[in-house]
């Protein structure tokens, strides 16, 4: 009998409150090494907060977050930095540094001389389908899709074993979104990355996910393999994937 591998990421009973608002109300979730887990859920359900809690950007109120078996809550200084070296992050808006050229954005956390870092940046640009001519441009000179690709190149530059994707296709046209989805799936497979993605975009879910989980009311209310998503009988999940206005999920502020 073989024991199950240690989850790369494991959340148990994680809670987080902002003032009177309980955003996370006991999250239990595990992501296996090399797995691509996509978390779906409505706006304001705490998906981004959950990612930031795992990164140590937001302290949790209670519960446990373990990455490769190590407890994240309470990490400080060099230990917290070491934890963050294991995780790359693609932010929703790209979060590229406006004042720096593309190559310095990508190689920001890389060691070495300027020439070595620029060469590494150009290599990573190639991985996301962009040419070296982009390297010296400023982020403001790029289209939204190109900015997302550059942000993706920055997220993978240090070859972290885990990458978080926060709404990777938000604000992109369907074709550019498909290109980003393809890139993410290819990178996850080629680089054997453990990926945790949050999105509203069902096309992204179907393209990127090995497994899907739904966050609602501060808890994971359903999770399962991608293949079981369409046959799922959870009313919340059904409403979300069909995009129906009728169902148990009510828009905040909507009249009953």
């Amino acid at each position, binding site marked *: 009998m073989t024991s199950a591998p240690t989850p790369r990421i494991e959340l148990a009973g994680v809670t987080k409150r902002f003032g009177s608002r309980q955003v996370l109300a006991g999250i239990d979730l595990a992501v296996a090494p090399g797995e691509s887990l996509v978390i779906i859920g409505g706006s304001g359900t705490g998906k981004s907060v959950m990612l930031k809690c795992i990164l140590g*950007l937001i302290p949790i109120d209670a519960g446990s977050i373990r990455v490769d078996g190590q407890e994240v809550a309470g990490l400080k200084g060099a230990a917290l930095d070491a934890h963050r070296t294991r995780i790359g992050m693609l932010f929703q808006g790209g979060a590229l540094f406006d004042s720096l050229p593309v190559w310095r954005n990508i190689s920001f956390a890389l060691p070495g001389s300027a020439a070595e870092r620029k060469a590494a940046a150009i290599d990573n640009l190639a991985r996301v389908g962009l040419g070296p001519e982009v390297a010296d441009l400023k982020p403001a000179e790029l289209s939204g899709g190109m900015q997302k690709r550059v942000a993706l190149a920055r997220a993978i530059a240090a070859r972290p074993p885990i990458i978080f994707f926060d709404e990777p296709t938000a604000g992109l046209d369907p074709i550019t979104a498909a290109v980003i989805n393809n890139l993410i799936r290819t990178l996850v497979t080629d680089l054997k990355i453990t990926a945790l993605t949050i999105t509203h975009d069902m096309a992204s879910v179907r393209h990127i996910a090995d497994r899907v989980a739904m966050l609602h009311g501060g808890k994971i209310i359903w999770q399962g393999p991608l293949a079981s998503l369409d046959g799922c009988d959870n009313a919340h999940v059904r409403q979300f994937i069909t995009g129906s206005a009728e169902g148990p999920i009510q828009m905040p502020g909507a009249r009953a």
Partner: protein
Amino acid sequence: MIGVLVAIGVPVLAALASIGRLTRFAIRALTRMAQPPWYPAQVAQQMLSIGWLSLPVVGLTAIFTGSALAQQIFIGGSRFNAASTVPAVTVIGVVRELGPVLGGLMVAGRVASAMAAELGTMRVTEQIDALVTLRTDPFRWLVGPRILAAVLVMPFLVLVSNALGVMGGWLLATQRLGFNSAQYLATTARYLEWDDVISSLVKAAVFGFFIALMGCYHGYHSGGGAAGVGKATTNAVVSSFILILLSNLIITVIVFGS
């Protein structure tokens, strides 16, 4: 009665909490600045942005104010046959007060607002979070270089402001009020003391610290999208103005009060 206590207590507690947050921010910035890694290129870039690019507005303000001051001293002094005090009072007024204070206010208007807007935009677009995920301390990368650059550059700006303010007074006095150029400059030199210059430079460094601190503090804690950045910018300018005027009064009383 309880309503009155609440009406007084709530804003007092809020003000104390704000002072506490600002103090903690300042201590955190200063302690992180003292520890490596340091980013000299960031400091140099900020020195250029704060110092070189503020020269036109500081210089013009000093020339116009120095000229107006000389004119007013001449008018006021003429009432009791003291018009000859124009060079002495102008140099003292400019170097002790107007040069540093107006220079500080001009730089605050230009720089504190720019810092708050830049850091505020970085906050709302998650660039500060991105810095942290890339193992870079925002206090060392963003806040420290701005404070250090402002403290280093402001004394030079105020030296220029003082020189141009005195020159403005000299220009007006010699071209319009009939003063002899050589006598004006000799009187100016005779009444200018080292204490005046040193207090002016100390004020400038203190003002630079407050300008950068308030710009960074309000920008760093900005939230709520574009409106939040706008509010942070306004708060940075207003609070740096108040701190400049308050610290100027304190330094003046300490140095010249006795």
